[in-house]
């Protein structure tokens, strides 16, 4: 039996008290325990940022990498061993800013990993600059006259590029988020959960209260996430009402399915054969 305590470690947590990330990590542990996955059976990969520190605060296999680069690292890991169960923790800056190009490609590849983007709509670790998802007009020390770029639209872009599992979670609703994580992990192929995550230190706009007033659960509306057009419409809904839940789900052959060399199992499990090398020289 896997217990939530199995996932607790003694490493000091470095987030601000009240940070939305606490909700995310609680939901993750809960989801892993629910699936009876033990710490040595899971691999967390992250980039750099407050979100990306998460793996340090959990006892399990982990690799925290470079700002923006978690997705190619995870893709490479799956190429080597597609039995690995991988969750990627990333921030909005990490994933949609520095790592934007990799996000596009990971979706298009349909690599079988679960991506959790802790979307606090701000650069937390570097002290509060606008991120790609910051709403227009948001004022920061750097964006003194307010953000002037259109916000990045993760759900719409993912859908446009054929993503098979597109969801939105809320760090303030751990139970619902845990459910989403379980579903995302069950999904074969790339799954995205963009998580609305309050940053109590730098984002004074999109607070817990702000979200609580606005979010509603798709699961409670009878919505079935199999209608692409409807999903596209919901992906764009923002403002007074913000949907959380599974926006779209469709299983398709994964990246790993489509690579002939992986049919026989993980490439690392295959055998080295000197005779084949010798044949090269004949």
């Amino acid at each position, binding site marked *: 039996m896997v217990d939530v305590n199995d996932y607790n470690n003694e490493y000091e947590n470095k987030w601000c008290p009240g940070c939305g990330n606490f909700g995310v990590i609680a939901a993750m542990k809960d989801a892993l325990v629910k699936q009876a996955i033990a710490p040595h059976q899971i691999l967390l990969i992250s980039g750099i940022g407050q979100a990306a520190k998460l793996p340090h605060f959990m006892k399990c*296999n982990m690799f925290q990498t470079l700002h923006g*680069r978690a997705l190619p690292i995870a893709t490479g890991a799956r190429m080597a061993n597609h039995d690995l169960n991988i969750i990627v923790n990333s921030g909005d800056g990490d994933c949609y800013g520095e790592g934007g190009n990799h996000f596009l490609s990971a979706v298009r590849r349909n690599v079988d990993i679960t991506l959790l983007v802790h979307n606090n709509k701000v650069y937390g670790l570097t002290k509060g600059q606008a991120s790609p998802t910051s709403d227009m007009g948001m004022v920061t020390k750097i964006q003194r006259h307010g953000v002037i770029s259109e916000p990045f639209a993760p759900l719409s872009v993912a859908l446009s590029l054929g993503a098979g599992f597109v969801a939105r979670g809320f760090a303030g609703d751990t139970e619902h988020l845990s459910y989403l994580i379980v579903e995302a992990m069950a999904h074969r192929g790339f799954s995205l959960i963009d998580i609305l995550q309050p940053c109590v230190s730098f984002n004074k706009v999109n607070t817990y209260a702000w979200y609580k007033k606005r979010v509603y659960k798709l699961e409670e509306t009878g919505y079935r996430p199999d209608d692409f057009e409807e999903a596209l419409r919901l992906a764009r809904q923002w403002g007074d009402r913000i949907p959380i839940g599974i926006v779209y789900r469709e299983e398709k052959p994964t990246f790993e399915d489509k690579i002939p060399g992986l049919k026989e199992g993980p490439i690392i499990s295959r055998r080295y054969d000197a005779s084949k090398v010798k044949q090269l020289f004949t």
Partner: protein
Amino acid sequence: MSIDITVKIGGEAGQGIQTVGDLLALVCRKAGLYIMAINDYESRIRGGHSFFQIRIADRPVTAPHHKTDLLVALSRRTIDLHEKELAEGGLIMTDQAEDGEKENLVSIPINDLAVEAGGKITANTVAAGVCLSLLGAPFNLYREVLSEHFSKKSDKVIQDNIKAAELGYKAVEKRVFHRAFHWDFGQPKGMLMDGAKAVAYGALAADCRVAAFYPMSPATGIMAELIARSDVFPIVVEQAEDEIAAVNMIVGASFAGARAMTSTSGGGFCLMTEGLGLAAMSETPIVIVNAQRPGPATGLPTRSSQSDLLFVIRASQDEFPRFVFAPGTVAEAYESMLRAFDLSERYQVPAIVLTDHYMHTSVWLNDTELTVPDVVERHIADKPADDPDNYNRFAVSTSGISPRIIPCTGEALIVSTGNEHREDGHISEAIDDRIAMVDKRNAKMKAMTAEMAPPEALFGDAGTLLVGWGSAGGAIREAVELLRDEGYDAGALLFADIWPFPADAVENRLKQCKRFLMVEMNSTAQLGSLIREQTGLAHSGTILKYDGRPIYPVEISDGFKRIME
């Protein structure tokens, strides 16, 4: 008299001059001859001017020759550009003659003969036939090669080509070429190999399992070769969205347990430098091939250069151990890959193999036996299985090497990061941890240095040494021969193992000579700078070529003489 003949085939991109060259090379190999061929083309798909230049000899040849004995001109421009390179008694064979037959000009209606044989597509077979006939090669040999070469094609294709060959042969039946010789040198002496193939085969022999890349000349050839073998070998190759993704993919793959590599050229290598640092910090073995071309920036995408040496040694912020190899021959290229993978895993550091466009696209007949390991040692720790709770990925040790495990293969947990960290892999900003980890990483340098072979010495006790590295070695080798034949007291020092720099061996060597001259394909003598940094010894002159073209032995010997005057 020894055989040493150069045939140069020139034409437009898309005309198939490479095919002519390939056929000649195959025939020569079959005849037991040695060859060395270079490939010159512009950064475009059709038109322009390109050539394939093959040197045929009865002993190993390591560099191209500056004179052409037989110039095959498939375009008018070939004659304009290369006529002046013709050796005494050399011939031009062309279908482009404007002013009719000349003494040194053989005019052949190649296309007409091809059409006669079965189609324009056989023109290259005709051309090669003409060359072989002129050189006195027995027709049977050519026929055999054609049958093998087209063995996967239809019978008609084979027959058409043999017909084309015959027509080519007959067209010059009467012509006496005083450079023709008797084709009888026994069995094939080895295998035709270009640098791209050598690198790829080395990677396969090293049991590389994952490769990721973004297309870039001249590096893509390696990946094409790996992909071509991926049905037989357990290897997955992915075209990444950019070079940043490529390098990070292989870091991920290696972390997950696969030997992994990427290949690129200068601009792509720039984009990989941050990932290189991640490999270093997380002590994840990776192999990067940087196939050099002239820069800066996009530079000359289809030309060659040796100008990234100092960059790759210092690339990425802060300091960390790494290996840098710069193989000089196809055999060394193959062996370098084997060593790069092995040493990278043994020391848990990144390894960089520096090649170049010339190495990748030139063909040699390799007669050196190549190592094929029976088993591939992976340097993975098994201890943690006994006591998984106390496993520390970055445990301090005198060697600097810590036990490496593969995630999710046992109970022990692996914790890794690109931040500075404690022995258990968690981020630490503590002074003690920082110092311990820097010292641990640096501690590897000693044993790593001991792995480095000293540069190869040719007449190492000569008064003047020509010092070079990587693919320039072939030309330097022949230059030394030329110089010694002329009575000069010349030798050479050829570097293939660059970093960690084998400083003691180099210093000992160089202290013994009167002077040394740097021969490099760059404009500042980068190895010369490195030698001075590492030994304090300064060179007495340079022979540098940085126009993107391969260097000829005679350019080196001339440079030598100029300096010595």
